[in-house]
């Protein structure tokens, strides 16, 4: 077995405050989210006491049954909605609104249907006020990175689901975010496309060196991609357990048959089965 690369962390840059380890990028403490009404029967406690610290450059899989609050947690980290209680810090500062340092890839792609692939990818660069020529260039190289070259002028409805998600990934990478948030990005894709894109995202995340929070309810997907799998309990969602993945990166297809991978996926399934069945 290779060295435990997941636990290896870069040395803190000089001059950073020592109050907390400098490489903690996202710090979630005792986070809670309650939806709706004032009476207890209309209230939904989606998250309750979520604690999670994420290091710079770490790939986190957020694994849990549907309805356990994964999207809610991701939406709060993105800044789309606010937490009901607890604290949420990015580099020591509270997250209060969406910011191009944290971009999101959605399950339903959420591409802008009236824009070409190229224009979609350029959106975040245009928002920055970047000049036309420069942003076209950056977009082109990102489109190349997600292997969509030749489809720049296509509209989302003209390309397949897998290609749409590639375009959405390129769009999310364009503003050069620190953190990439992905909410079941391959959930709507067929099995083969999903496997291919898992390998792509393994490659891209290693190349781009981003912190990634990858939401999924697929156990093998979670283990295959992550440095650390954070397992959430059914509603109200909280962190149930964490599994550090010792496989080296970038992840490659052969690792799916690695004995550690196989047994970890099986163990997770065995422990989660009773809980997930209850949730059905």
């Amino acid at each position, binding site marked *: 077995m290779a060295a435990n690369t997941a636990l290896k962390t870069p040395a803190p840059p000089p001059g950073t405050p020592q109050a907390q380890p400098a490489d903690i990028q996202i710090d979630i403490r005792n986070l809670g989210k309650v939806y709706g009404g004032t009476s207890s029967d209309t209230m939904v406690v989606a998250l309750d006491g979520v604690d999670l610290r994420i290091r710079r450059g770490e790939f986190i899989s957020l694994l849990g049954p549907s309805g356990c609050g994964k999207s809610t947690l991701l939406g709060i980290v993105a800044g789309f909605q606010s937490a009901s209680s607890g604290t949420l810090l990015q580099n020591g500062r509270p997250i209060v609104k*969406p910011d191009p340092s944290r971009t999101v890839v959605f399950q339903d792609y959420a591409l*802008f*249907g*009236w824009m070409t692939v190229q224009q979609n990818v350029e959106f975040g660069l245009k*928002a920055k006020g970047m000049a036309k020529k420069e942003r076209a260039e950056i977009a082109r190289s990102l489109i190349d990175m997600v292997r969509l070259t030749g489809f720049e002028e296509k*509209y989302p409805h003209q390309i397949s689901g897998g290609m749409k998600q590639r375009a959405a990934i390129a769009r999310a990478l364009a503003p050069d975010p620190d953190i990439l948030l992905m909410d079941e990005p391959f959930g709507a894709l067929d099995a083969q496309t999903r496997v291919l894109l898992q390998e792509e995202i393994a490659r891209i995340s290693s190349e781009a060196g981003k912190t990634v929070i990858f939401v999924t309810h697929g156990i093998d997907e979670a283990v295959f991609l992550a440095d650390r799998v954070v397992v959430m309990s059914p509603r109200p969602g909280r962190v149930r357990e964490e599994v550090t993945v010792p496989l080296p990166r970038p992840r490659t297809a052969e690792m799916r048959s690695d004995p550690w991978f196989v047994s970890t996926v099986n163990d997770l399934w065995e422990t989660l089965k009773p809980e997930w069945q209850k949730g059905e």
Partner: protein
Amino acid sequence: MEANSKAHAAAPPFMQRAPRRAVSPRILTDRSFRAAMGLTAFFAVWQALTSLGVIDAFLLPSPAAVAGAMWDMALDGSLWVHLGASLQRVAVGFALACVVGMALGLMCGWWRGVADFVRPVVEALRPIPPLAWIPITILWFGLGDAASYFLVFLGAVFPAFVATYTAVRGLDRNQMNAALCLGATPWQLFTDVLIPASLPIILPGLRIALGVGWMCVVTAELIAAQTGLGYLIQQSRMLFQINNVVAGMVAIGLVGFAMSAVLERIERRVNAWAPSERN
């Protein structure tokens, strides 16, 4: 096993047949050709009924007679004067309705609180037909263009409002969030996301609004104007010029048809990306 998979590999006969297009000539399947056929048949039946005497020409003149009347009015210029007056009125009223209806629809769609206040008022005013507004319109604006503008506005503002409200309500939350996390400024969110995302619903609504506005201008002119196609019909009725009455009606129908066709064209271009506009 081997044999089995071979048997499956051979496609069943119904799938092997070459895809066959309809045998009828292409022109019969062309949509504008069919439209022309439908209109021609309509006028042919009308012509037949009147020239065979099934319908008394005093009650309904033949299409030929109507065309003749229209030709005469086109030559003496009166048709153009009335048509121009009606078009100018519908343009002003419709523009006002678009501005007010879309602005209100936008605000109601965006802010729940605004909708809670405004929608009951709109829904209570909406059922009052423009015809019922005529007395009070004349009281307020007298006889003249302003009264027509107001009636067109009343007819068009509700469809414009409803379409905009529906469109903004139906905006994809994730698309909005995607734009926000990519750093979109409020202005970019408005011009690059909200507007283009809403157009597939807004534009058909505006087409309906223009259609209603066109009906309203004619209604207004029947009573409260001294020019326009509505006035032409009213005046011809009093002069017992039944040919001119029907000619005015035909002109209204054709112009309404043309306006709707042009807008539909524009819609198809603008919304080419939207699911409802494909095929």
